[in-house]
């Protein structure tokens, strides 16, 4: 067993886990933060993405021990309990989710982008979204929601 100290959504935790334990399993199984989902378990789909020391990380590819000492933010920590961040509100208003399984990963990647130092362009946004698989929405609502949240102009849903 190995000792792992993390700060998760602002709270300090110390755990004793097998060295092979994945970060996602610590979050879900040890800390009960089941908002982070596993879609493929090998880093492609992006559903398990969380923010580790400000960067988006596939928590299915990181051992908990590798995150020792890190600040981790999950979907549960994006706003105060029961509340939603502007990004979450935009996903709601722009129909950026259907089944909601991939959503926490997208929210975490986009939150890391929002909180990072870079100037964000629309291309940048598109690149981040293209790093996640969503099987439900066809991405239209996700693109709209992220543009709203990042203050870019959006065209209304094209429908007649």
């Amino acid at each position, binding site marked *: 067993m190995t000792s792992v100290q993390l700060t998760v959504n602002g709270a300090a935790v110390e755990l004793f886990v*097998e060295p*092979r*334990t994945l970060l996602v399993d610590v979050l*879900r199984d040890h800390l*009960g*933060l*089941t*908002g*982070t*989902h*596993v*879609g*493929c*378990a*090998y880093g*492609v*789909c992006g*559903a398990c993405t969380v923010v580790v020391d400000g960067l988006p990380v596939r928590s299915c590819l990181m051992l908990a021990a590798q995150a020792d000492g890190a600040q981790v933010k*999950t*979907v*549960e920590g*994006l*706003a105060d*309990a*029961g509340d*939603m961040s502007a990004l*979450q509100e935009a*996903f*709601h*208003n722009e*129909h950026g*989710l*259907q*089944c*909601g*399984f*991939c*959503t*926490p990963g997208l*929210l975490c990647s986009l939150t890391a982008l929002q909180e990072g130092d870079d100037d964000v362009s629309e291309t940048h946004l*598109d690149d981040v*979204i*293209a*790093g*996640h*698989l*969503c*099987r*439900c*929405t*066809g*991405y*239209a*609502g*996700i*693109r709209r929601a992220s543009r709203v949240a990042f203050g870019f102009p959006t065209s209304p*849903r*094209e*429908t*007649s």
Partner: protein
Amino acid sequence: MIGETRYVGTSVPRREDARLLQGTGRFIDDIRLPGCHHVVFVRSSMAHGILRGIDATDARTVPGVLAVLTGADLASTLPIMAPSKADGGVFEEQLLDILGSDKSFIRREDRKPVAVDRVRHVGEIVAVVVATDPYIAEDAAERVVVDIEPLAAVVDPYAALEVDAPRLYDHWPDNRSLRLHVTKGDIDAAFSSAATVVKRRFHSGRVSASPIEGRGVVAELDSRTTRLTVWSSTQIPHPVRTVLADALSLPVSRIRVVAPDVGGGFGCKAIPYPEETIVAHLAMVLGVAVKWIEDRWEHFASSSHSRDQYHDIELALDADGRILGLRDRFVMDAGAANPLGVVQPYNTIAHLCGCYKVSALDVEAIAVVTNKVPLSPYRGAGRPEAVFAMDRILDVAAQAIGLDPIELRRRNLIPAEAMPYEVGINYRDGSPIVYDSGDFPACFERAVELSHADSERRSGFVLDDGRKVGLGISTYVEGTGVGPFEGALVRVDGDGTVCVAVGACPQGQGHETIFSQIAADVLGLHPDKIHVTTGDTDAVPYGWGTLASRSAVVAGSAVTEAATELRHKMLEALAEDWEIAASDLEIDDGSLFVRGTPSRTASFATVAERFLPGGPYARIYGAGLEAQSYWEPPTVTFAGGVHVARVAVDTETGQTEILDYVVVHDCGPLVNPLIVDGQIAGGVAQGIGTALYEELHYDEIGQPLNPNLIDYLLPSADTVPELVVAHLETPSPLNPLGIKGVGEAGAISPPAAIANAIEDALRDFDVHIDQVPVSPSYVLGRLHESDAYMRSRNEI
């Protein structure tokens, strides 16, 4: 409809969103039960073989392992997997009776949930490991030694039809699982009098539904009530309960099946699976809660695949390009079993003629078993395959005749005044196919207009970067809202709030939102005052589930009917009490009042309280302010639409980019435009995957070559363009809301529209696009066979 349409037709924000956005949704793996053990399945690594033995001695010694069970251990307790009674399975016997034994047959496999003496595809379950922790269960599973003596694998469906082909099922005379033959009109006369006959073979590739959440099952036996609760990431809790009751010899009343939040389904979660039976059985015999969560490899190796049809399609046309007759012989590569029987192949037959007038038809479908993962419907369910064959052969015909493909279609579309239009064959529910509503030419012209498809400058030219631009069009109809029924229970509680429970079971379609909208309008209160329960067999005793573009139509009608009865009940009781006519009462915002005298009012709570057992209304009308409906559609109602794709093809790399994509769809009045557009957008994205990217490959010994999300390409955001979507809203006469289903629609036409566009782009090279996905390597292969292309390269 009764009541005011205040909420139906508006984009009421989804009430499901908050929990899903805040990480407090509850998916299958989020269900945490004390003492829960974890199941890992050991699966066959061979495509075809005799199971000689399994040595689990070593695995059983791993600390934390509770049990390792093999097919031999479970053979006497778990029965053969029965044909599914889900969805269209219920209509199967009726349909086969109508077709007659000279034209149809279906054969049943004799598979057990855990293989006993034979394996028939890579991924078939051969042993079950139960341990305290998933890591330990995986460790132990690696130590199970499986001895399989290989048999020759059958991989190619045409090879499977050879007389000397290895057979999958010894009790069958050959590898055919099913034959369906449907005819109408004089097909020989149509072909002998034709001015033009065109023929091609088209293949729709084998795909995986690939929801981002795989399947999963949790089961627990309550030792006090002796009831079994099974949570499953399924689209069909009620049929799963039926299967479990049969397999475990339990009365239905002792089983509860619940679908929690489901992370996408798209059809692959709409059949009962062996894992549900096995996990439920383990909970019964081991006396602990058990959980199984599918991993991504398992999804590719055990969740149903779909499509995989080869069509030899032939079209006879007169000199003006009017269709005289259509002949199609198609082979569906079913994989190792065909759990939903007629559904997918018969859907193909029923939708082949689509929006076009076809007076003579002769279609034969053969399903063939091979050593691959079994096939079942995936979004579109046989329709994308039909439309791909039909709209491709129409483009071939247009070229043969020298007519513009758009003009050829115009000449063959069923006119609006022909509605309701009898196609002349039966649907799979046994009813004659009647297009009940719609205006195909109006849909078509709107799509042409929005895509500027008639404009000279829209296709057939070269972009500055050298890519060639082409345009493709495709039309479709879709029978939606299939029976046999769906149920709704609506109740007003003593506090005046309303509960709606439906048998439907969503996977992201926003059922809680739309059913609250429908009930709100009928009852006359705000949707927020209505709680909607889905996907729980304890909430509604009978149900089917959410599949086949049916829930808004069938469950929505049940909600309408039950809520209408409830409304009348309230009005009648209060009117009698106040000694006025019920017609003098109105309802608004959760209160009943006398028209013109709003001060004379009674809230829902007041009325509901008087309906409580012992209350004054209860004594007259019976206890409880509630109503139920099990709404049975007379038959399906037909939605339809037109897609236009414009693409740029790079002839150096074979890459295709979709430049723009237009959808005109008619699903009747939109209950929630935001959700309808979301369904269309998601469907088109999956259709783009089928058209350009997705195909499961097997090698010659039946090993899957790309069972992972690295080599099996799902469309990502950079490959799906912004869509232009327009709606026609011609109401259906077949249900109280006038609506038609929309769940699958978006996925039906993209393969045909995009393949047509690619062939159009490559028109100078006379290239034939005969399959989807149209991968870059396929395009390059076809180009390299083209003399014109090779000449053009040599000239450079």
